[in-house]
């Protein structure tokens, strides 16, 4: 068997290093950071942001920002996103200095509570304005946490989608599938943290470590910026003789992947194979061939191979992709009206407790279209501000009035995006419970006439 030789690995070049920062927002966010640090994550700066001083002091991150020093006085936000947001706005400058100069910013938060739901969209927005590629990784609350928390989370998720390049959304309900029901709830939460820290690590490693076949910042951007901001992620690591197959299976078993079914709709898929010096060509072949069965023939597969001595005899497979539906493109271009608009910066709150700019509407859990409009109205223009215009001068903040026509376009995207959230399958009838037959990314158990949209009758 052909052995890939280590010498072929390119030296890491200094000019390629990217500054990556991970910000954990709120209690859940800082848990994720702790987990990431525990698992070992290099060349990445960690920042914890929280309103609750107690939780903040417990965090292991090397930089900590207390939100709303005057507003909450070191207490938590009490599950109130508006308070969380107000607190974040109070500490706006601190956040801005933390995100300044970052190339990639991961924002981790648990949605549903106060600080995470309120502050995370705001932080994402600030980072985006500072020119970073913003990836937000959030957990959605368990259904049993109550309708209100779920609604808060959904509202916040919508704002985050608007304010970031990509969102990887982990539903705790699905995460629970990773653990057995009789395990402690704390383990179920921990499972989510592990998965999130894995994805951060995988993306960070992809960018930082030299590869035989290298994947870089540009590839990530093309994959994540291209989609509709709903990222797919899978990570698997395995050891032993059959590690290539096992690692791939594990990565597809990730709750976000739906056993690989979701990949069929992706236009770009990044796959990175990492292993020690003994990765064989055969193993790479196995991974790629099996993966190819899950993607459609139009999908562009970008493969990276990294040789990392620290991996020992293990081999890992990371798959990153985003759901891209070309039919939604037209909507998207419409929502870049900010291109023509002068950049309107968030009025920087100089005094404590400013008027919140992002208002989370929670009174009615399913807002009608009109309500939705209100909700994002203030936010829409600057979130979509292109990078060139976004190194904003402070005085730009003064010219306040956003142009109304620009705002009108915003709600459309939101609706389009929301549709993607529901991925309940079409009817598979009696094959509902059997192993799916997937060829070329098509689920053959679904009636052909439905898949091909042949009109019958």
């Amino acid at each position, binding site marked *: *068997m052909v052995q890939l030789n280590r010498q072929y690995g390119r030296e890491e070049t200094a000019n390629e290093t990217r500054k990556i920062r991970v910000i954990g927002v709120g209690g859940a966010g800082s848990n994720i950071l702790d987990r990431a640090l525990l698992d070992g994550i290099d060349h990445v700066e960690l920042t914890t942001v929280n309103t609750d001083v107690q939780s903040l002091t417990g965090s292991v991150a090397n930089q900590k920002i207390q939100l709303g020093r005057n507003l909450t006085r070191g207490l938590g936000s009490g599950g109130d996103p508006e308070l969380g947001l107000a607190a974040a706005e109070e500490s706006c400058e601190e956040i801005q200095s933390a995100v300044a100069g970052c190339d990639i910013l991961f924002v981790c938060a648990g949605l549903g509570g106060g600080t995470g739901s309120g502050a995370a969209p705001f932080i994402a927005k600030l980072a985006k304005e500072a020119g970073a590629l913003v990836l937000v990784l959030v957990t959605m609350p368990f259904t049993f946490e109550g309708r209100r928390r779920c609604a808060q989370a959904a509202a916040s998720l919508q704002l985050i989608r608007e304010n970031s390049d990509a969102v990887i959304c982990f539903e705790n309900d699905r995460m629970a599938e990773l653990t057995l029901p009789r395990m402690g709830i704390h383990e179920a939460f921990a499972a989510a943290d592990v998965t999130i820290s894995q994805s951060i690590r995988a993306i960070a490693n992809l960018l930082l470590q030299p590869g035989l076949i290298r994947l870089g910042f540009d590839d990530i951007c093309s994959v994540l910026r291209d989609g509709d901001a709903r990222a797919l992620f899978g990570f698997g690591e395995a050891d*032993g*003789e*059959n590690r*290539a*197959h096992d690692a791939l299976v594990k990565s597809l078993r990730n709750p976000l992947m739906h056993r690989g079914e979701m990949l069929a709709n992706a236009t770009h898929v990044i796959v990175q194979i990492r292993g020690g010096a003994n990765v*064989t060509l*055969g*193993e790479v*072949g*196995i991974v790629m061939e099996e993966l190819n069965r899950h993607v459609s023939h139009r999908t562009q597969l970008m493969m990276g191979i990294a040789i990392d001595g620290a991996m020992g005899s293990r081999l890992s497979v990371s798959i990153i992709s985003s759901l891209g539906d070309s039919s939604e493109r037209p909507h998207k271009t419409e929502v870049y009206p900010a291109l023509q608009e002068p950049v309107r910066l968030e009025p920087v709150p100089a005094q404590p407790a400013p008027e919140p700019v992002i208002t989370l509407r929670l009174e009615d859990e399913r807002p009608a279209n009109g309500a939705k409009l209100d909700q994002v109205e203030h936010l829409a223009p600057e979130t979509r501000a292109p990078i060139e215009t976004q190194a904003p001068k402070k005085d730009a903040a003064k010219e306040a009035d956003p142009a109304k026509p620009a705002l009108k376009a915003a709600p459309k995207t939101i609706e389009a995006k929301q549709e993607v959230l529901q991925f309940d399958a079409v*009817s*598979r*009838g*009696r*094959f509902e419970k*059997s*192993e799916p*037959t997937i*060829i*070329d990314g098509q689920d*053959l*158990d679904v*009636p*052909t*006439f*439905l898949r*091909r949209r*042949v009109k*019958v*009758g």
Partner: protein
Amino acid sequence: MARDNIFVGLEIGTTKVCVVVAEARHDNTLKILGVGNAPSRGIRKGELVDFETAKRCVHDAIADAEERSDVEISEVYLGISGGHIRSFNNRGIVVLEEGREEIDEQDLEDVRTNAREVSLPMEDCVLHTIIQHYYVDGQDGVLNPLGLFGKKLEADFHIVYGIRTRIQNAIRCVKELELETADVVINSFATAQAVLDKNHKQQGALVIDIGGGTADFVVYVEGAVKQSGVIAVGGDHITNDLSIGLKIPSARAEKLKIEEGDVTLGNAFPGETIVLRDETGFAGREIERETFNQIIHCRVREIFEIVARQVDADQNLNYLGAGVFITGGSSQLRGIEHLASEVFGLPSRITAPLPLTGVTSAFEHPQFSTAIGLVRYAHLVHLDRPMARGILSRTMKRLSGIFRT
């Protein structure tokens, strides 16, 4: 005790379990002594999903066959299918050591082993290593290199593999009924033995066996197996599509498919309907024939298109002189051969097993292609089996023999 010249083929299909008992006669022909049948349950897409239920069905079919043929069955040739079965072609190379120039049996075995040495996932195991062509010192067209002089022996093989545990399930099912499994054969090969003669194989042929749960196909080019595959889509899917599309119960859809199934489009009179009479638990209604045909047409066309794509990927479509042979239960859909001709651009026909002697007339039906193919396979193995039963020579001879013919 079973006699030495009795062969039993067992096909555990998604719709039915079928057992064929045949006797090899002195003039090297095969006579069918009896066929046992049982509707199957606990099997989906060609694989066991409910072990105990499936075992009972196999037991019923075996008992039926024993009764009809008056033979006590002790050993079966087992047909295997399922979406996990995959295949590829690979070449093995052996260089003879210094001072030796004649190719012997060990070299043939070594070249086979060499070809199998590819990295498969650990959970998989090789089912068949079928010889395609030998090359001696680069010379093409060597039929049997044994005893030839040469320095380098190369051979192309078609290697079929599947997930070990799933294959073991079927074997265990047989074993728990106190039966021995003589050999495991993938269904598509078995079927090809039943429906193709030597000439077809030489001219090049594509056999598609559309059963209840799977569509198995095999491509013969120049007498050798060039390609094979299993697509886990079959008649069950058609039934399911009808059930969903026409909103009728599954059992009713199955019956309707068998009675009226047709893939022809544009052949129905405008407004022509099929009347479903009311039964207990089902209010009768009328179904537009064109709609009905359309649903089946879409599914069958898709199956053919997938096969065509896979065969075409290796550019084998151009070598199929004998055309396409469609068999299996679902080949009973009316007009399926025309649809196949259209998709493959090749002459296509529905085919039943080639005639054998014995109580055959009832079994010269596409449904029984695989089960009869299994006994033909067993017979061919037996014919090729040398008197001296060295395990090496046996396996080698048998495989080289069968698939060359």
